[in-house]
């Protein structure tokens, strides 16, 4: 097989990661309407989502990422003028144009010398964001980069659609990258666009600009195909990443999987022979928040961090696209992890 879209990058360090969620909490068992209690119990039992955080009508991904970034910049003591690049990974932008990254450059008070752009990926977006940030730093010129990743999937779910409405929560995150660091990072990035319809918001883009059916503005998911794709692709991409890095499963401290669905995640862990303790779950409290579920789980997954060595983390994003990607990174003992809430009512 030709080794495409695999690479190793040296000399990049994670200074800190902060996740952010809306304060409004939705308890699936107590608050779900429009479904019978049995239906809700069945979905909760399988997907593992007990509660979720909801952005409501007033909070965007950018607001959650801004809250995460403000907290992160304060914790790590970076001067705003020292940030050279901002990458915003999202599929729930404020506007079709301009790029949400431009708004965030302004809102965060970053210098106009800062490069800023959006990346339109979902569940696989975090490894891609780290890859791009690491590439920019290793390429020279950029010394400090913020990778922001936020989604509001609960806002694009049709409340009457059982396959998605009890699953999704909203979250944002901010990750600070800079030159330096304890070791090489490895990335594997893959795509199969033939499954583009398996997870799609068909309306509102330029293919179908103003559909009359409002449901076309909501997400539609073929759960069976997405699950099938996950069990086919995830074990292979993890093994490919281990091979690329010259590591064994046992060398990985944590496998941080996109928090898609507890049933899928448990099946993947079992299939790959990874102990459950090495695959932290946060979707019980936060739901499937799309790609930001990875930084959210790093920050909120209660990782045990030795003081004398970096953690080796295998980050695995998979889903909408269809797109899947890994980032094998090191998280040094000095890297700051944090979590914050954005107060909201609606």
């Amino acid at each position, binding site marked *: 097989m030709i080794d495409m879209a695999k690479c190793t990058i040296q000399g990049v360090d994670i200074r800190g990661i902060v996740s952010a969620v809306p304060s409004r909490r939705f308890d699936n068992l107590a608050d779900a309407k429009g479904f019978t209690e049995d239906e809700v119990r069945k979905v909760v039992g399988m997907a593992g989502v007990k509660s979720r955080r909801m952005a409501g009508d007033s909070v965007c991904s950018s607001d959650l990422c801004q809250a995460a970034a403000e907290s992160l910049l304060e914790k790590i003591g970076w001067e705003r003028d020292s940030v050279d690049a901002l990458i915003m990974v999202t599929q729930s932008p404020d506007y079709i144009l301009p790029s949400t990254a431009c708004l965030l450059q302004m809102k965060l008070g970053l210098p106009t010398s800062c490069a800023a752009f959006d990346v339109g990926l979902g569940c696989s977006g975090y490894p891609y964001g780290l890859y791009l940030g690491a590439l920019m730093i290793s390429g020279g010129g950029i010394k400090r980069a913020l990778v922001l990743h936020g989604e509001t999937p609960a806002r694009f779910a049709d409340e009457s659609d059982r396959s998605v409405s009890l699953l999704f929560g909203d979250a944002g995150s901010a990750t600070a990258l800079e030159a330096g660091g304890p070791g090489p990072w490895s990335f594997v990035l893959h795509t199969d666009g033939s499954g583009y319809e398996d997870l799609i918001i068909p309306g509102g883009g330029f293919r179908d600009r103003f559909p009359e059916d409002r449901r076309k503005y909501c997400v539609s998911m073929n759960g*069976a195909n997405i699950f099938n794709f996950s*069990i*086919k692709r995830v074990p292979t991409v993890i093994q490919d990443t281990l091979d690329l890095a010259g590591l064994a499963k046992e060398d990985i401290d944590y496998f941080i999987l996109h928090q898609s669905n507890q*049933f899928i995640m448990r099946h993947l862990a079992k299939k790959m022979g990874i102990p459950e303790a090495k695959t932290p779950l946060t979707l019980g409290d936060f739901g499937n928040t799309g790609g930001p579920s990875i930084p959210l789980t790093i920050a909120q997954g209660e990782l045990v961090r030795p003081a004398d060595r970096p953690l080796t983390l295998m980050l695995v994003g998979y889903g909408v696209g269809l797109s899947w990607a890994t980032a094998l990174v090191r998280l040094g003992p000095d890297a700051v992890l944090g979590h914050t809430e954005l107060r909201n009512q609606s």
Partner: protein
Amino acid sequence: MAKSPSEVLTWVAEVFEAPADKIRPGTRRDEIDAWDSLGILTLIARMDEDFQVLLTEEEIQELRSVGDIVEILRKHGRLGEGA
């Protein structure tokens, strides 16, 4: 790994937690309560776990009866001889 056709019927009953006497090759998907949009995930997972069979998207769409499950296992060489 291979099962006889009758063992497959027992296996299907177990996967969907259905009474064994209700599961025959002709039993349709809509006659099995647990074979809903969540049940299909269980079926895909158990095919992988117990038979090491990964389905294609086309095969998933074609699963409409217990007989279809038996046929897919036959196609993947997981069906042994027997009653």
